């Protein structure tokens, strides 16, 4: 695991370490099983195309899971996630890389704890933010 990031280490405008995902149809089947979302647009190509989709598409919540991983990888064992929110703006298909990114937007001390806010999102190969979102975390503070 990466070195623990502290509240003092972050600056507004800093980028979170990017995560690259390479979703496969197999992954969509695994996610359906693990989450209980068996909607066929995620693994049955004929069904998906019959619904006007180009092919099977990623579950929105799977993308939310990717964004969640971006955040938990960044905050490390010492950080605590307080809020996470995403909007589903674009479809993503398996077989192409999906980039998961974030940027720190705010930091403040509240009740003695180091709060940090960031914009987080999944981004496709065309540079579109298909799943824009935000997060609020608490990062540990260095010993004073």
């Amino acid at each position, binding site marked *: 695991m990466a070195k623990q990031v502290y509240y003092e280490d972050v600056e507004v405008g800093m980028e979170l370490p990017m995560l690259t995902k390479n979703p496969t149809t197999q992954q969509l089947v695994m996610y359906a099983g693990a*989450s*209980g979302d068996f909607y066929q647009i995620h693994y049955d190509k004929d069904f998906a195309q019959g619904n006007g989709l180009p092919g099977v598409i990623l579950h929105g919540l*799977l993308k939310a899971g990717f964004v969640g991983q971006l955040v*938990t990888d960044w905050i490390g064992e010492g950080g605590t996630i307080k*809020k996470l929110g*995403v*909007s589903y703006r674009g479809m993503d298909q398996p077989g192409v890389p999906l980039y998961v990114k974030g940027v720190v937007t705010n930091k403040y001390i509240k009740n003695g704890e180091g709060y940090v806010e960031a914009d987080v999102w999944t981004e496709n190969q065309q540079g579109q933010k298909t799943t824009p979102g935000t997060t609020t975390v608490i990062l540990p503070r260095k010993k004073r």
Partner: protein
Amino acid sequence: MPEEGTVTSVITDEMKAAIGKKGKPVTHLIEKGAVRRFAQAIGDPNPLWNDEAKARKTRYGGMVVPPTFFCSLAGDPAAMRINLPYTRRLNGGDEWEYFQPVHVGDRITVVSELADLYERKGSLGNMLFVITKQTYTNQFGEKVAIHKNTLITY
């Protein structure tokens, strides 16, 4: 037919009355295998949700659930069964707020409710937004998380 420019609300009194109604509580045991399978499906190797021995050495004292794991804990949807005027649906978004970590072995109770209904005119025409909320509490009665979903119907 309403004239162009007039707003005819599709939200009936019956629908308004359903706001705030809660479904029956549903309790889930948080199982190690389910947490690992979920983490593996996302492709997230973090030991906190994969490796009990490593997770035990952390401040959590054991495996905990990743942030979107709550979507696998189904609630009672009965509270949200209202007659919706539009049949087309899009998942608009999900948000979570976290209060306490959830450990493998915890018993988490989910209560679902219809949180809000509102209309917007937009690119898809008249849209009815259906906001549902799940509240999760653990076996100690502590609220561990809440989740809200925005369903766009049109």
